[in-house]
């Protein structure tokens, strides 16, 4: 859009500049009007029948404004009146000469000729001031031009508009590709060192029998390494979603099973006892299927729970509910993940709700940003708010109830 606007502005600017330059170099040429000048000539017939011609002051001023000259020729080819006629301009002309200068130049002077009652009236301009040629085309050619030129013009405009757009898009795509590859590369390279950190922290955890402090630290190292892994994976996934580089599946996913699996994974990862996760699935939704990418859905649930954990260091209760709510006369299936922790500020909530596209990576809130991106990809509505307990809550409103398999 910006490109199209820029091209439009440039075209208008070009037209304005050319118009300005034309006016600047005109030197009164556009005021040259043989009809006007001839109108300033007065014809006087004396008593003896002699005819005299004179020109008004306005007429001479007009001719002087472009250093020109004028003359009137009778039907015999003789000049019967003139003003500022150059010396090298003859005063008698043959038919052949008349035909020649009416079309082109008179002794290299550009002249403009009009047929008047008394003969031929001509206004001339100084040499080398006007490019003057006659052009002639076949009617067929003109017709062809008339039909082809608008099409060519249209094609040119389209090429002008589309060409730069395609080039810019290709370059942007290349940059996005480089960025995605870079993030994917970092995400890949960090995995082996993280394996070692988690592996040795785990070994330390199990070998430090009786030393609670060492065990606690080992557990902390393991937890932080898992957190780094989650962060990098989030960054990678978010980037792929932002630039449309990922390959996502559209499969039928049994949501209650996916929610429980995800929570089991989190709890089984030695989740601190100060966090209590409860799950409530409405009986009618035990067989609730949604269409989408299972990995992304898992990430959505995991990110919301991780968010509750990382923002409530003193511990909290996390409630995960899959339920049906009345929304605008319709029942909609909603996944709510909420906690009774410290909640978030209004500014933070505002940031969570706004889907701004920025080249800068957010310092915080990547997990929530990814939740919004995943919901958007699946056409689900997502809402963030502080609940009655003062804790943070997120609701995901599902748009599709794919199928509910009956028990066979």
């Amino acid at each position, binding site marked *: 859009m910006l490109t199209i606007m820029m091209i439009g502005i440039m075209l208008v600017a070009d037209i304005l500049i050319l118009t300005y330059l034309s006016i600047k170099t005109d030197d009164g040429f556009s005021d040259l009007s043989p009809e006007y000048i001839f109108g300033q000539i007065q014809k006087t017939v004396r008593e003896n029948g002699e005819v005299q011609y004179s020109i008004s002051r306005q007429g001479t001023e007009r001719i002087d404004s472009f250093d020109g000259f004028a003359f009137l020729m009778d039907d015999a080819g003789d000049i019967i009146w003139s003003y500022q006629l150059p010396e090298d301009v003859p005063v008698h002309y043959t038919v052949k000469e008349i035909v020649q200068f009416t079309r082109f130049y008179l002794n290299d002077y550009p002249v403009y000729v009009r047929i008047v009652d008394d003969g031929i009236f001509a206004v001339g301009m100084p040499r080398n001031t006007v490019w003057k040629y006659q052009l002639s085309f076949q009617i067929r050619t003109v017709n062809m031009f008339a039909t082809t030129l608008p099409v060519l013009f249209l094609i040119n405009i389209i090429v002008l508009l589309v060409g730069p757009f395609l080039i810019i898009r290709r370059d942007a795509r290349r940059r996005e590709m480089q960025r995605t590859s870079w993030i994917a590369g970092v995400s890949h390279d960090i*995995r082996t060192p993280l*394996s070692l950190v988690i592996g040795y922290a785990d070994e330390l955890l199990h070998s430090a029998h009786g030393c609670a402090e060492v065990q606690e630290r080992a557990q902390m190292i393991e937890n932080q390494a898992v957190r780094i892994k989650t962060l990098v994976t989030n960054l990678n996934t978010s980037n792929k979603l932002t630039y449309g580089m990922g390959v996502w599946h559209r499969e039928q996913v049994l949501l*209650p099973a996916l929610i*429980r699996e995800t929570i089991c994974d989190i*709890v089984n990862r030695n989740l601190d006892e100060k966090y209590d996760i*409860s*799950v409530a699935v409405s009986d009618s939704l035990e067989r609730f299927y949604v269409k989408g990418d299972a990995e992304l859905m898992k990430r959505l649930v995991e990110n919301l729970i991780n968010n509750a954990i990382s923002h409530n260091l003193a511990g909290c209760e996390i409630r*995960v509910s899959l339920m049906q709510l009345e929304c605008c006369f319709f029942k909609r299936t909603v996944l709510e993940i909420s906690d009774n922790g410290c909640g978030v500020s209004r500014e933070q909530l505002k940031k969570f709700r706004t889907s701004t596209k920025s080249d800068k990576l957010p310092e915080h809130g990547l997990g929530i940003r990814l939740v919004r991106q995943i919901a958007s990809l699946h056409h689900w509505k997502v809402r963030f708010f502080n609940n009655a307990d003062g804790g943070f809550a997120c609701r995901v409103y599902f748009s599709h109830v794919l199928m509910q398999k009956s028990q066979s």
Partner: protein
Amino acid sequence: MTLQECNILLVDDEPELLTLVGKLLKNEGYRHVHMVAGCAEAMWYTQENDYQLVLLDIMLPDGDGFTLFEQIKKLKGSGLPVIFLSARDEDYARLKGLGLGADDYITKPFLPEELLLRVKAVLKRTYHIDENMGTDRIGRAVIDWDAGTISVDGEDDTLTAKEFALLKKLCENRGRILSINVLCDTLWPDGSYGYENSLMVHIRHLREKLEDNPSKPAHLLTVRGLGYKLV
């Protein structure tokens, strides 16, 4: 053959990771673990030895794991299980690995416990090692997997097929919560969802056989809304 007698070959270009995984497997009781850093060495070891499992990285200094996988399968046949252990987490790599016929695909970083569980699961599945599982103890109860019985203070009780499968799954994941859906999948692998109530019945029967006080279980715990956990 027992699990501990299985020969395992580790192929990874990171010497530190080789040491770590080797140590994990040895601590778990696997006596024969060989570690190599490249394709050529891996092929030589595979020719010279008889392995029961290969753990394979994908990006190796002298080739890629997928090609090595195909060469190993050509040499040893499809019977030798292979698990990919790679930092490549993209769908393409995972699907390619599993599509070639790998028995599992683990992405780095992995939790040590998870790696050991997956290795064990592949070995058990391939060599039917669980056909002769011996016994397990849960509190005062002793489970004889060969006989399919559970005995408390010398009194034997028989496990039904569903109870056996359920208890086996819980024992394999002892200390971990297993979701209702995973347990239902274990008991009804055809995907007959909606058996949550039947699962609860089987759990109750198991508790009657296992627990001193089935109404206040000490070993087979319910995790509300999520599933069950054997401690």
